Protein backbone atom coordinates (compact mmCIF):
# COMPACT_ATOMS: atom_id res chain seq x y z
CA UNK A 1 0.00 0.00 0.00
CA UNK A 2 1.37 3.38 -0.95
CA UNK A 3 1.09 5.96 1.80
CA UNK A 4 0.31 9.50 0.89
CA UNK A 5 2.24 12.24 2.60
CA UNK A 6 0.01 15.09 3.44
CA UNK A 7 1.69 18.38 4.32
CA UNK A 8 -0.59 20.97 5.76
CA UNK A 9 -0.15 24.44 4.23
CA UNK A 10 0.77 26.10 7.49
CA UNK A 11 2.61 28.94 5.94
CA UNK A 12 5.17 29.52 3.30
CA UNK A 13 7.94 29.65 5.88
CA UNK A 14 6.97 26.46 7.65
CA UNK A 15 6.48 24.83 4.27
CA UNK A 16 9.98 25.78 3.25
CA UNK A 17 11.35 24.40 6.51
CA UNK A 18 9.56 21.11 5.94
CA UNK A 19 10.87 20.87 2.40
CA UNK A 20 14.36 21.52 3.72
CA UNK A 21 14.07 18.85 6.37
CA UNK A 22 12.76 16.43 3.75
CA UNK A 23 15.69 17.11 1.42
CA UNK A 24 18.24 16.76 4.23
CA UNK A 25 16.66 13.47 5.28
CA UNK A 26 16.81 12.21 1.72
CA UNK A 27 20.44 13.20 1.44
CA UNK A 28 21.50 11.54 4.70
CA UNK A 29 19.59 8.30 4.34
CA UNK A 30 19.57 8.14 0.57
CA UNK A 31 15.93 7.74 0.59
CA UNK A 32 13.93 8.30 -2.46
CA UNK A 33 10.28 7.57 -3.12
CA UNK A 34 9.47 4.33 -1.28
CA UNK A 35 6.47 2.03 -1.35
CA UNK A 36 5.50 0.98 2.18
CA UNK A 37 3.34 -2.01 2.79
CA UNK A 38 1.27 -1.98 5.93
CA UNK A 39 -0.83 -4.74 7.32
CA UNK A 40 -3.24 -5.00 10.20
CA UNK A 41 -4.95 -8.11 11.41
CA UNK A 42 -8.36 -7.42 12.80
CA UNK A 43 -8.79 -9.94 15.59
CA UNK A 44 -11.96 -11.69 16.49
CA UNK A 45 -13.52 -10.03 19.49
CA UNK A 46 -16.02 -11.75 21.71
CA UNK A 47 -19.56 -10.37 21.73
CA UNK A 48 -20.98 -8.66 24.79
CA UNK A 49 -24.47 -9.03 26.18
CA UNK A 50 -25.57 -6.20 28.45
CA UNK A 51 -28.63 -4.43 29.87
CA UNK A 52 -30.59 -7.65 30.31
CA UNK A 53 -33.94 -6.89 31.93
CA UNK A 54 -37.12 -8.83 32.68
CA UNK A 55 -40.63 -7.48 32.08
CA UNK A 56 -39.52 -3.87 31.84
CA UNK A 57 -38.39 -3.86 35.45
CA UNK A 58 -41.86 -4.64 36.80
CA UNK A 59 -43.21 -7.59 38.77
CA UNK A 60 -44.76 -10.32 36.62
CA UNK A 61 -48.53 -10.80 36.81
CA UNK A 62 -49.93 -13.95 35.23
CA UNK A 63 -53.32 -14.49 33.60
CA UNK A 64 -55.83 -17.10 34.72
CA UNK A 65 -55.81 -20.37 32.79
CA UNK A 66 -53.68 -19.09 29.93
CA UNK A 67 -50.22 -17.83 29.09
CA UNK A 68 -48.87 -14.33 29.64
CA UNK A 69 -46.26 -12.65 27.48
CA UNK A 70 -43.15 -11.66 29.42
CA UNK A 71 -40.44 -9.73 27.60
CA UNK A 72 -36.71 -10.05 28.11
CA UNK A 73 -34.71 -7.14 26.71
CA UNK A 74 -30.98 -7.17 26.09
CA UNK A 75 -28.29 -5.43 24.07
CA UNK A 76 -25.86 -7.51 22.05
CA UNK A 77 -22.61 -5.84 20.97
CA UNK A 78 -19.79 -7.06 18.79
CA UNK A 79 -16.83 -4.92 17.76
CA UNK A 80 -16.48 -6.91 14.55
CA UNK A 81 -19.70 -5.42 13.25
CA UNK A 82 -23.35 -6.17 12.74
CA UNK A 83 -22.75 -9.21 10.54
CA UNK A 84 -21.46 -11.00 13.61
CA UNK A 85 -24.76 -10.35 15.33
CA UNK A 86 -27.14 -11.04 12.48
CA UNK A 87 -25.27 -14.24 11.66
CA UNK A 88 -25.02 -15.44 15.25
CA UNK A 89 -27.13 -17.80 17.30
CA UNK A 90 -28.65 -17.20 20.67
CA UNK A 91 -30.30 -18.90 23.60
CA UNK A 92 -32.48 -16.88 25.93
CA UNK A 93 -33.48 -18.25 29.32
CA UNK A 94 -36.16 -17.10 31.73
CA UNK A 95 -36.16 -18.98 35.01
CA UNK A 96 -36.76 -18.90 38.73
CA UNK A 97 -33.44 -18.02 40.33
CA UNK A 98 -33.40 -21.14 42.50
CA UNK A 99 -33.31 -23.30 39.37
CA UNK A 100 -30.09 -21.62 38.08
CA UNK A 101 -29.33 -20.85 34.46
CA UNK A 102 -27.24 -23.98 33.94
CA UNK A 103 -30.04 -26.32 35.04
CA UNK A 104 -32.54 -24.39 32.94
CA UNK A 105 -30.22 -24.51 29.92
CA UNK A 106 -29.77 -28.23 30.10
CA UNK A 107 -33.30 -28.77 31.39
CA UNK A 108 -31.69 -31.10 33.85
CA UNK A 109 -33.56 -32.52 36.79
CA UNK A 110 -37.15 -33.52 37.07
CA UNK A 111 -38.02 -30.23 38.73
CA UNK A 112 -37.10 -28.13 35.67
CA UNK A 113 -40.36 -27.60 33.79
CA UNK A 114 -42.61 -24.79 32.67
CA UNK A 115 -43.15 -24.21 36.34
CA UNK A 116 -39.80 -22.49 36.58
CA UNK A 117 -37.79 -22.54 33.33
CA UNK A 118 -38.39 -21.24 29.78
CA UNK A 119 -35.97 -21.37 26.89
CA UNK A 120 -36.10 -19.79 23.43
CA UNK A 121 -33.64 -19.87 20.53
CA UNK A 122 -34.25 -16.51 18.87
CA UNK A 123 -34.81 -12.89 19.69
CA UNK A 124 -36.45 -10.06 17.83
CA UNK A 125 -34.36 -7.04 16.94
CA UNK A 126 -35.88 -3.97 18.56
CA UNK A 127 -33.48 -1.53 16.93
CA UNK A 128 -31.46 -1.32 13.76
CA UNK A 129 -27.96 -2.65 14.23
CA UNK A 130 -25.53 0.26 14.21
CA UNK A 131 -21.78 -0.05 14.59
CA UNK A 132 -22.11 -3.54 16.01
CA UNK A 133 -24.76 -2.97 18.63
CA UNK A 134 -28.27 -4.44 18.59
CA UNK A 135 -31.16 -4.04 21.02
CA UNK A 136 -33.21 -7.21 21.31
CA UNK A 137 -36.51 -8.38 22.75
CA UNK A 138 -37.55 -11.95 23.45
CA UNK A 139 -41.15 -12.71 24.35
CA UNK A 140 -41.90 -15.72 26.53
CA UNK A 141 -45.38 -17.20 26.90
CA UNK A 142 -45.34 -17.94 30.61
CA UNK A 143 -47.89 -20.44 31.86
CA UNK A 144 -50.49 -19.59 34.49
CA UNK A 145 -48.99 -22.12 36.90
CA UNK A 146 -45.44 -20.69 36.87
CA UNK A 147 -44.06 -20.54 40.38
CA UNK A 148 -44.58 -17.36 42.38
CA UNK A 149 -41.70 -15.72 44.22
CA UNK A 150 -43.48 -13.06 46.27
CA UNK A 151 -43.41 -12.83 50.04
CA UNK A 152 -46.39 -15.17 50.49
CA UNK A 153 -45.05 -17.86 48.18
CA UNK A 154 -42.91 -20.93 48.76
CA UNK A 155 -40.04 -19.20 46.97
CA UNK A 156 -39.88 -15.97 48.93
CA UNK A 157 -36.48 -14.38 48.41
CA UNK A 158 -36.05 -15.74 44.89
CA UNK A 159 -37.02 -14.00 41.67
CA UNK A 160 -37.30 -14.63 37.95
CA UNK A 161 -34.06 -14.05 36.10
CA UNK A 162 -33.08 -13.91 32.46
CA UNK A 163 -29.84 -15.05 30.88
CA UNK A 164 -28.92 -14.34 27.27
CA UNK A 165 -26.22 -16.44 25.62
CA UNK A 166 -24.94 -15.32 22.25
CA UNK A 167 -22.60 -17.09 19.85
CA UNK A 168 -21.14 -15.44 16.76
CA UNK A 169 -20.43 -17.22 13.47
CA UNK A 170 -16.77 -17.15 14.61
CA UNK A 171 -17.85 -19.25 17.58
CA UNK A 172 -17.06 -16.62 20.18
CA UNK A 173 -19.61 -16.25 22.94
CA UNK A 174 -21.02 -13.65 25.26
CA UNK A 175 -23.40 -14.00 28.18
CA UNK A 176 -25.48 -11.55 30.17
CA UNK A 177 -27.74 -11.93 33.20
CA UNK A 178 -30.56 -9.71 34.33
CA UNK A 179 -29.81 -7.78 37.44
CA UNK A 180 -32.02 -7.69 39.33
CA UNK A 181 -34.63 -10.29 38.47
CA UNK A 182 -38.33 -9.71 38.97
CA UNK A 183 -40.93 -11.00 41.39
CA UNK A 184 -43.58 -13.27 39.93
CA UNK A 185 -46.81 -12.62 41.81
CA UNK A 186 -49.10 -15.22 43.28
CA UNK A 187 -52.28 -15.60 41.24
CA UNK A 188 -55.45 -16.98 42.76
CA UNK A 189 -57.91 -18.10 40.09
CA UNK A 190 -60.73 -20.52 39.50
CA UNK A 191 -62.57 -21.98 36.57
CA UNK A 192 -65.73 -24.05 36.37
CA UNK A 193 -66.66 -26.48 33.65
CA UNK A 194 -70.23 -25.28 33.39
CA UNK A 195 -71.91 -21.93 33.51
CA UNK A 196 -75.09 -23.14 35.20
CA UNK A 197 -76.42 -25.67 37.64
CA UNK A 198 -79.19 -27.69 36.07
CA UNK A 199 -81.64 -29.19 38.53
CA UNK A 200 -84.06 -30.31 35.83
CA UNK A 201 -87.83 -30.10 36.42
CA UNK A 202 -89.12 -30.61 39.91
CA UNK A 203 -92.54 -30.42 41.50
CA UNK A 204 -93.42 -28.51 44.60
CA UNK A 205 -92.70 -30.26 47.86
CA UNK A 206 -90.15 -32.50 46.19
CA UNK A 207 -86.39 -32.53 46.08
CA UNK A 208 -83.62 -33.64 43.78
CA UNK A 209 -83.11 -36.85 45.75
CA UNK A 210 -80.03 -38.69 44.47
CA UNK A 211 -79.94 -36.73 41.20
CA UNK A 212 -77.09 -34.44 42.15
CA UNK A 213 -76.01 -31.73 39.78
CA UNK A 214 -72.26 -31.70 39.46
CA UNK A 215 -70.05 -28.64 39.05
CA UNK A 216 -66.35 -29.24 38.52
CA UNK A 217 -64.00 -26.47 39.62
CA UNK A 218 -60.43 -26.25 38.36
CA UNK A 219 -57.48 -24.32 39.66
CA UNK A 220 -56.61 -21.65 37.08
CA UNK A 221 -53.85 -20.00 39.10
CA UNK A 222 -50.42 -20.73 40.55
CA UNK A 223 -51.35 -21.29 44.17
CA UNK A 224 -53.52 -23.72 46.03
CA UNK A 225 -57.03 -22.50 46.66
CA UNK A 226 -60.03 -23.33 48.73
CA UNK A 227 -63.58 -22.56 47.72
CA UNK A 228 -66.18 -20.27 49.15
CA UNK A 229 -69.81 -20.46 48.07
CA UNK A 230 -72.81 -18.18 48.44
CA UNK A 231 -75.95 -17.15 46.63
CA UNK A 232 -75.60 -13.62 45.30
CA UNK A 233 -79.13 -13.73 43.85
CA UNK A 234 -81.77 -15.97 45.31
CA UNK A 235 -83.99 -18.08 43.03
CA UNK A 236 -86.73 -15.91 41.60
CA UNK A 237 -89.47 -16.21 39.04
CA UNK A 238 -91.18 -12.87 38.74
CA UNK A 239 -92.27 -12.02 42.26
CA UNK A 240 -92.00 -15.64 43.42
CA UNK A 241 -88.96 -16.61 45.45
CA UNK A 242 -87.43 -19.88 46.60
CA UNK A 243 -85.53 -19.14 49.82
CA UNK A 244 -81.87 -19.98 49.31
CA UNK A 245 -81.05 -21.02 52.84
CA UNK A 246 -83.67 -23.77 52.85
CA UNK A 247 -83.44 -25.01 49.29
CA UNK A 248 -80.04 -25.43 47.60
CA UNK A 249 -77.44 -27.65 49.22
CA UNK A 250 -73.94 -28.75 48.28
CA UNK A 251 -71.41 -31.37 49.22
CA UNK A 252 -67.97 -32.53 48.15
CA UNK A 253 -69.34 -36.02 47.57
CA UNK A 254 -72.55 -37.37 46.11
CA UNK A 255 -75.58 -37.48 48.37
CA UNK A 256 -79.28 -38.14 48.46
CA UNK A 257 -81.05 -34.93 49.41
CA UNK A 258 -80.36 -33.64 52.03
CA UNK A 259 -78.10 -36.27 53.48
CA UNK A 260 -74.75 -34.83 54.54
CA UNK A 261 -75.01 -31.82 52.25
CA UNK A 262 -74.77 -28.23 53.46
CA UNK A 263 -77.28 -25.47 52.80
CA UNK A 264 -76.09 -22.66 50.57
CA UNK A 265 -76.05 -19.33 52.39
CA UNK A 266 -76.34 -15.68 51.45
CA UNK A 267 -72.91 -14.96 52.94
CA UNK A 268 -69.73 -16.59 51.64
CA UNK A 269 -68.91 -19.82 53.45
CA UNK A 270 -65.79 -21.92 53.02
CA UNK A 271 -66.43 -25.43 51.71
CA UNK A 272 -65.00 -27.81 54.25
CA UNK A 273 -62.41 -30.21 52.91
CA UNK A 274 -62.22 -28.59 49.49
CA UNK A 275 -58.67 -27.77 48.38
CA UNK A 276 -57.35 -27.42 44.85
CA UNK A 277 -53.60 -27.78 44.93
CA UNK A 278 -51.42 -25.67 42.68
CA UNK A 279 -51.23 -27.10 39.15
CA UNK A 280 -47.85 -28.25 37.88
CA UNK A 281 -48.78 -28.50 34.20
CA UNK A 282 -51.68 -27.77 31.90
CA UNK A 283 -53.39 -30.86 33.28
CA UNK A 284 -56.33 -29.58 35.30
CA UNK A 285 -56.34 -29.83 39.05
CA UNK A 286 -60.06 -30.32 39.45
CA UNK A 287 -62.60 -31.19 42.09
CA UNK A 288 -66.34 -31.56 41.97
CA UNK A 289 -69.08 -30.13 44.12
CA UNK A 290 -72.45 -31.91 44.18
CA UNK A 291 -75.66 -29.90 44.28
CA UNK A 292 -79.23 -30.63 45.26
CA UNK A 293 -82.41 -28.65 45.80
CA UNK A 294 -85.72 -28.90 47.58
CA UNK A 295 -88.82 -27.10 46.33
CA UNK A 296 -91.10 -25.81 49.08
CA UNK A 297 -94.69 -26.85 49.26
CA UNK A 298 -97.14 -24.66 47.29
CA UNK A 299 -94.33 -23.16 45.23
CA UNK A 300 -95.83 -21.59 42.09
CA UNK A 301 -94.67 -22.85 38.71
CA UNK A 302 -92.13 -20.94 36.76
CA UNK A 303 -88.58 -20.79 35.55
CA UNK A 304 -86.61 -19.69 38.56
CA UNK A 305 -83.37 -17.82 38.14
CA UNK A 306 -80.59 -17.18 40.61
CA UNK A 307 -76.84 -16.85 40.90
CA UNK A 308 -74.40 -18.86 42.96
CA UNK A 309 -70.91 -17.49 43.44
CA UNK A 310 -67.85 -19.73 43.40
CA UNK A 311 -65.15 -17.71 45.08
CA UNK A 312 -61.47 -18.61 45.23
CA UNK A 313 -59.80 -18.19 48.60
CA UNK A 314 -56.02 -18.06 49.04
CA UNK A 315 -54.77 -21.18 50.80
CA UNK A 316 -51.01 -20.81 51.28
Amino acid sequence: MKHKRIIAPLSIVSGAILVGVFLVTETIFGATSTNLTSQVIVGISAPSVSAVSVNGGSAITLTANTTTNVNVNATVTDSNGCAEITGGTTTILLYRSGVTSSSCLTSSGAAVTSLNCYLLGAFTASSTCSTGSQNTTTTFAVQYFAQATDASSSYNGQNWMATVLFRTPDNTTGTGDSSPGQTLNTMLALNVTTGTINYGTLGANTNSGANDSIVTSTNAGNTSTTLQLYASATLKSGSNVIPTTTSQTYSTSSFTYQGTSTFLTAAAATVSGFVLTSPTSTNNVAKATFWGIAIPNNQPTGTYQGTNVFQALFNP
Partner: protein
Amino acid sequence: MRPASIIAIASIAAIAFFVVPASVTYAAFGVSPPFVNADHLVPGSKFSETIYLVQDQPNQDLNIQTNVQLPDPLKSWVSIDRGFNFVIPQGTNQYAVTVTISVPQNASLGVYHGTISFDTAPSSAGQVTIALGAQVSVNVTVGRGVFEKYSVQQITFQDIGEGENPLVNVKFENDGNVPESFDGATYELYDRFDTVRLAYIQKNDGFLTTPPFTIEDYTVEFPTDFYMGIGEYWGIVTFYKNNQIVASQKTVFNVIKTDWLSKTKRFIEKEWVFILIGAMLLALLAFLVVRRVRRMK
Protein backbone atom coordinates in the same frame (compact mmCIF):
# COMPACT_ATOMS: atom_id res chain seq x y z
CA MET B 1 -113.05 -37.25 35.92
CA ARG B 2 -114.15 -35.87 39.26
CA PRO B 3 -113.53 -32.22 40.00
CA ALA B 4 -111.32 -33.14 42.97
CA SER B 5 -109.02 -35.16 40.74
CA ILE B 6 -108.83 -32.34 38.22
CA ILE B 7 -107.92 -29.93 40.98
CA ALA B 8 -105.22 -32.31 42.28
CA ILE B 9 -103.63 -32.73 38.81
CA ALA B 10 -103.83 -29.02 38.23
CA SER B 11 -102.17 -28.43 41.56
CA ILE B 12 -99.29 -30.77 40.70
CA ALA B 13 -98.87 -29.05 37.38
CA ALA B 14 -99.03 -25.67 39.01
CA ILE B 15 -96.26 -26.38 41.45
CA ALA B 16 -93.88 -27.83 38.92
CA PHE B 17 -90.43 -26.17 39.07
CA PHE B 18 -88.37 -25.81 35.99
CA VAL B 19 -84.70 -25.20 35.79
CA VAL B 20 -83.32 -25.22 32.28
CA PRO B 21 -79.64 -24.87 31.51
CA ALA B 22 -78.62 -21.60 29.97
CA SER B 23 -75.91 -21.08 27.42
CA VAL B 24 -73.22 -19.07 29.14
CA THR B 25 -69.68 -18.84 27.86
CA TYR B 26 -67.43 -19.29 30.82
CA ALA B 27 -63.99 -17.99 31.58
CA ALA B 28 -61.53 -18.49 34.39
CA PHE B 29 -61.33 -15.58 36.76
CA GLY B 30 -58.93 -14.61 39.50
CA VAL B 31 -56.81 -12.00 41.21
CA SER B 32 -53.08 -11.39 41.47
CA PRO B 33 -51.78 -10.99 44.06
CA PRO B 34 -54.58 -12.16 46.38
CA PHE B 35 -53.39 -10.09 49.31
CA VAL B 36 -52.60 -6.54 50.35
CA ASN B 37 -49.92 -6.71 53.02
CA ALA B 38 -49.00 -3.38 54.57
CA ASP B 39 -46.77 -4.35 57.47
CA HIS B 40 -44.86 -1.23 58.34
CA LEU B 41 -47.33 1.61 58.33
CA VAL B 42 -47.12 4.47 60.81
CA PRO B 43 -49.76 7.08 61.61
CA GLY B 44 -49.99 9.34 58.55
CA SER B 45 -48.78 6.68 56.11
CA LYS B 46 -50.33 6.28 52.68
CA PHE B 47 -49.93 2.87 51.09
CA SER B 48 -51.10 1.77 47.65
CA GLU B 49 -51.08 -1.67 46.11
CA THR B 50 -52.16 -2.48 42.57
CA ILE B 51 -53.82 -5.82 42.16
CA TYR B 52 -54.97 -7.30 38.88
CA LEU B 53 -58.27 -8.99 38.14
CA VAL B 54 -57.40 -11.61 35.53
CA GLN B 55 -59.46 -13.66 33.10
CA ASP B 56 -58.64 -15.84 30.10
CA GLN B 57 -61.62 -15.19 27.82
CA PRO B 58 -62.51 -11.51 27.84
CA ASN B 59 -65.16 -11.94 25.14
CA GLN B 60 -67.52 -9.40 26.63
CA ASP B 61 -67.73 -6.64 29.22
CA LEU B 62 -67.60 -8.15 32.69
CA ASN B 63 -69.48 -6.56 35.58
CA ILE B 64 -67.65 -6.70 38.90
CA GLN B 65 -69.16 -6.29 42.31
CA THR B 66 -66.85 -5.53 45.21
CA ASN B 67 -67.65 -6.68 48.73
CA VAL B 68 -65.56 -5.18 51.52
CA GLN B 69 -65.33 -7.00 54.83
CA LEU B 70 -63.07 -4.79 56.92
CA PRO B 71 -63.24 -3.97 60.62
CA ASP B 72 -63.44 -0.44 61.93
CA PRO B 73 -61.39 1.70 61.75
CA LEU B 74 -59.62 -0.02 58.83
CA LYS B 75 -62.75 0.25 56.71
CA SER B 76 -62.58 4.04 56.69
CA TRP B 77 -58.90 4.01 55.72
CA VAL B 78 -59.31 1.86 52.61
CA SER B 79 -60.33 3.14 49.20
CA ILE B 80 -60.56 1.41 45.82
CA ASP B 81 -59.89 3.49 42.73
CA ARG B 82 -62.48 1.63 40.64
CA GLY B 83 -65.24 1.93 43.21
CA PHE B 84 -67.48 -0.91 44.38
CA ASN B 85 -69.19 -1.68 41.08
CA PHE B 86 -67.36 -1.42 37.82
CA VAL B 87 -67.01 -3.02 34.40
CA ILE B 88 -63.94 -4.72 32.99
CA PRO B 89 -64.01 -3.81 29.31
CA GLN B 90 -64.16 -6.50 26.68
CA GLY B 91 -60.73 -7.63 25.56
CA THR B 92 -59.02 -6.99 28.90
CA ASN B 93 -57.10 -9.95 30.32
CA GLN B 94 -55.57 -8.06 33.22
CA TYR B 95 -57.48 -5.23 34.87
CA ALA B 96 -55.62 -3.08 37.39
CA VAL B 97 -57.35 -2.09 40.61
CA THR B 98 -55.49 0.05 43.13
CA VAL B 99 -56.25 -0.35 46.80
CA THR B 100 -55.08 2.59 48.91
CA ILE B 101 -54.75 2.64 52.68
CA SER B 102 -54.54 6.10 54.24
CA VAL B 103 -53.72 5.89 57.92
CA PRO B 104 -54.80 9.01 59.83
CA GLN B 105 -52.35 10.78 62.12
CA ASN B 106 -54.41 9.85 65.18
CA ALA B 107 -54.73 6.17 64.25
CA SER B 108 -54.42 3.61 67.00
CA LEU B 109 -51.45 1.34 66.67
CA GLY B 110 -52.40 -2.24 65.99
CA VAL B 111 -52.83 -5.11 63.58
CA TYR B 112 -55.90 -5.17 61.35
CA HIS B 113 -57.21 -7.88 59.05
CA GLY B 114 -60.05 -7.99 56.56
CA THR B 115 -61.02 -9.07 53.08
CA ILE B 116 -62.10 -7.54 49.80
CA SER B 117 -63.98 -9.78 47.38
CA PHE B 118 -64.31 -9.22 43.67
CA ASP B 119 -67.21 -11.18 42.21
CA THR B 120 -68.28 -11.35 38.61
CA ALA B 121 -71.86 -10.60 37.73
CA PRO B 122 -72.71 -12.51 34.54
CA SER B 123 -74.92 -10.43 32.29
CA SER B 124 -76.66 -13.42 30.71
CA ALA B 125 -78.45 -15.05 33.62
CA GLY B 126 -79.41 -18.70 33.35
CA GLN B 127 -81.55 -20.49 35.89
CA VAL B 128 -78.87 -20.99 38.48
CA THR B 129 -76.03 -19.09 36.93
CA ILE B 130 -72.56 -19.64 38.35
CA ALA B 131 -70.54 -16.52 38.98
CA LEU B 132 -66.86 -16.61 39.80
CA GLY B 133 -65.15 -14.54 42.44
CA ALA B 134 -61.83 -14.11 44.19
CA GLN B 135 -61.00 -12.87 47.63
CA VAL B 136 -58.16 -10.56 48.57
CA SER B 137 -56.95 -10.61 52.16
CA VAL B 138 -56.00 -7.26 53.65
CA ASN B 139 -53.41 -7.28 56.42
CA VAL B 140 -52.38 -3.98 57.95
CA THR B 141 -49.98 -3.27 60.79
CA VAL B 142 -49.74 0.25 62.18
CA GLY B 143 -46.79 0.77 64.45
CA ARG B 144 -43.90 3.06 65.13
CA GLY B 145 -40.32 3.09 64.01
CA VAL B 146 -38.41 3.55 60.80
CA PHE B 147 -38.46 0.70 58.30
CA GLU B 148 -36.09 0.96 55.36
CA LYS B 149 -36.32 -1.26 52.32
CA TYR B 150 -35.54 -0.14 48.80
CA SER B 151 -34.24 -1.53 45.54
CA VAL B 152 -33.58 -0.54 41.95
CA GLN B 153 -35.70 -2.55 39.57
CA GLN B 154 -34.23 -1.31 36.31
CA ILE B 155 -31.48 0.91 34.93
CA THR B 156 -31.45 1.92 31.28
CA PHE B 157 -29.15 4.23 29.35
CA GLN B 158 -30.73 6.85 27.12
CA ASP B 159 -29.42 7.62 23.67
CA ILE B 160 -28.51 11.30 23.81
CA GLY B 161 -27.93 14.15 21.36
CA GLU B 162 -24.53 15.33 20.29
CA GLY B 163 -22.87 17.44 22.97
CA GLU B 164 -25.34 16.49 25.68
CA ASN B 165 -24.61 14.92 29.06
CA PRO B 166 -25.09 11.18 29.67
CA LEU B 167 -28.57 10.28 30.96
CA VAL B 168 -29.58 7.22 32.92
CA ASN B 169 -33.16 6.11 33.65
CA VAL B 170 -33.80 4.51 37.03
CA LYS B 171 -36.81 2.64 38.41
CA PHE B 172 -36.57 3.02 42.20
CA GLU B 173 -38.82 0.94 44.44
CA ASN B 174 -39.24 2.12 48.02
CA ASP B 175 -40.97 -0.48 50.20
CA GLY B 176 -40.04 1.29 53.42
CA ASN B 177 -41.95 3.84 55.46
CA VAL B 178 -39.53 6.74 55.02
CA PRO B 179 -38.51 8.66 51.87
CA GLU B 180 -35.39 7.34 50.17
CA SER B 181 -32.89 8.54 47.61
CA PHE B 182 -29.37 7.76 46.46
CA ASP B 183 -26.59 9.78 48.05
CA GLY B 184 -23.94 9.12 45.43
CA ALA B 185 -23.31 7.84 41.94
CA THR B 186 -20.42 7.35 39.58
CA TYR B 187 -20.41 7.18 35.80
CA GLU B 188 -17.54 5.83 33.76
CA LEU B 189 -17.54 6.57 30.05
CA TYR B 190 -15.66 4.32 27.65
CA ASP B 191 -15.14 4.33 23.91
CA ARG B 192 -17.11 2.03 21.60
CA PHE B 193 -14.58 -0.74 22.05
CA ASP B 194 -14.86 -0.57 25.83
CA THR B 195 -11.12 -0.11 26.11
CA VAL B 196 -10.35 3.59 26.64
CA ARG B 197 -11.89 5.45 29.55
CA LEU B 198 -12.96 8.83 28.30
CA ALA B 199 -14.48 10.33 31.43
CA TYR B 200 -15.21 9.64 35.07
CA ILE B 201 -18.10 11.52 36.61
CA GLN B 202 -18.96 11.57 40.29
CA LYS B 203 -22.28 12.88 41.51
CA ASN B 204 -23.04 13.47 45.17
CA ASP B 205 -26.31 15.38 45.14
CA GLY B 206 -29.33 16.26 43.07
CA PHE B 207 -30.98 12.85 43.38
CA LEU B 208 -34.77 12.76 43.47
CA THR B 209 -36.47 11.32 46.54
CA THR B 210 -38.91 8.43 46.34
CA PRO B 211 -41.81 8.65 48.83
CA PRO B 212 -42.61 5.68 51.10
CA PHE B 213 -44.34 2.65 49.54
CA THR B 214 -43.99 3.87 45.97
CA ILE B 215 -42.12 3.12 42.78
CA GLU B 216 -40.66 6.10 40.91
CA ASP B 217 -39.11 6.36 37.46
CA TYR B 218 -36.69 9.20 36.98
CA THR B 219 -33.71 10.28 34.92
CA VAL B 220 -30.29 11.08 36.34
CA GLU B 221 -28.02 13.40 34.37
CA PHE B 222 -24.25 13.19 34.66
CA PRO B 223 -22.72 16.55 33.68
CA THR B 224 -19.34 16.24 32.00
CA ASP B 225 -16.80 18.48 30.29
CA PHE B 226 -16.09 15.71 27.82
CA TYR B 227 -17.72 16.53 24.50
CA MET B 228 -20.03 13.71 23.52
CA GLY B 229 -19.49 13.38 19.78
CA ILE B 230 -21.68 11.27 17.55
CA GLY B 231 -21.04 7.56 17.97
CA GLU B 232 -21.36 4.61 20.26
CA TYR B 233 -20.07 4.52 23.82
CA TRP B 234 -20.00 2.20 26.80
CA GLY B 235 -21.19 3.48 30.14
CA ILE B 236 -20.89 2.04 33.63
CA VAL B 237 -23.14 3.59 36.24
CA THR B 238 -23.13 2.76 39.92
CA PHE B 239 -25.53 4.15 42.52
CA TYR B 240 -24.71 4.34 46.22
CA LYS B 241 -26.49 4.87 49.49
CA ASN B 242 -24.68 4.97 52.82
CA ASN B 243 -21.46 4.04 50.99
CA GLN B 244 -23.04 0.80 49.81
CA ILE B 245 -23.67 -0.07 46.17
CA VAL B 246 -27.43 -0.13 45.56
CA ALA B 247 -27.32 -0.92 41.85
CA SER B 248 -24.96 -0.91 38.90
CA GLN B 249 -25.30 -1.31 35.16
CA LYS B 250 -22.96 -1.43 32.19
CA THR B 251 -24.11 -1.16 28.60
CA VAL B 252 -23.72 0.64 25.32
CA PHE B 253 -25.57 3.74 24.21
CA ASN B 254 -25.53 6.06 21.24
CA VAL B 255 -24.89 9.73 20.76
CA ILE B 256 -26.99 10.79 17.82
CA LYS B 257 -27.15 13.81 15.62
CA THR B 258 -29.96 16.09 16.65
CA ASP B 259 -31.84 18.44 14.35
CA TRP B 260 -32.71 21.96 15.46
CA LEU B 261 -36.26 20.93 16.37
CA SER B 262 -35.06 18.21 18.72
CA LYS B 263 -32.46 20.54 20.17
CA THR B 264 -35.09 23.21 20.77
CA LYS B 265 -37.42 20.68 22.36
CA ARG B 266 -34.70 19.37 24.65
CA PHE B 267 -33.66 22.93 25.53
CA ILE B 268 -37.24 23.86 26.43
CA GLU B 269 -37.66 20.67 28.49
CA LYS B 270 -34.45 21.38 30.34
CA GLU B 271 -34.71 25.13 30.82
CA TRP B 272 -38.47 25.68 30.91
CA VAL B 273 -38.36 27.51 34.25
CA PHE B 274 -35.95 30.14 32.99
CA ILE B 275 -37.81 30.42 29.68
CA LEU B 276 -41.03 31.00 31.59
CA ILE B 277 -39.45 33.64 33.83
CA GLY B 278 -37.92 35.33 30.78
CA ALA B 279 -41.25 35.36 28.97
CA MET B 280 -42.96 36.89 31.99
CA LEU B 281 -40.29 39.59 32.28
CA LEU B 282 -40.63 40.38 28.57
CA ALA B 283 -44.41 40.59 28.93
CA LEU B 284 -44.01 42.94 31.90
CA LEU B 285 -41.54 45.07 29.99
CA ALA B 286 -43.87 45.27 26.99
CA PHE B 287 -46.72 46.24 29.27
CA LEU B 288 -44.67 49.02 30.88
CA VAL B 289 -43.54 50.35 27.49
CA VAL B 290 -47.09 50.40 26.11
CA ARG B 291 -48.38 52.18 29.22
CA ARG B 292 -45.65 54.78 29.04
CA VAL B 293 -46.34 55.41 25.35
CA ARG B 294 -50.04 55.85 26.07
CA ARG B 295 -49.32 58.33 28.89
CA MET B 296 -47.02 60.32 26.64
CA LYS B 297 -49.81 60.65 24.09
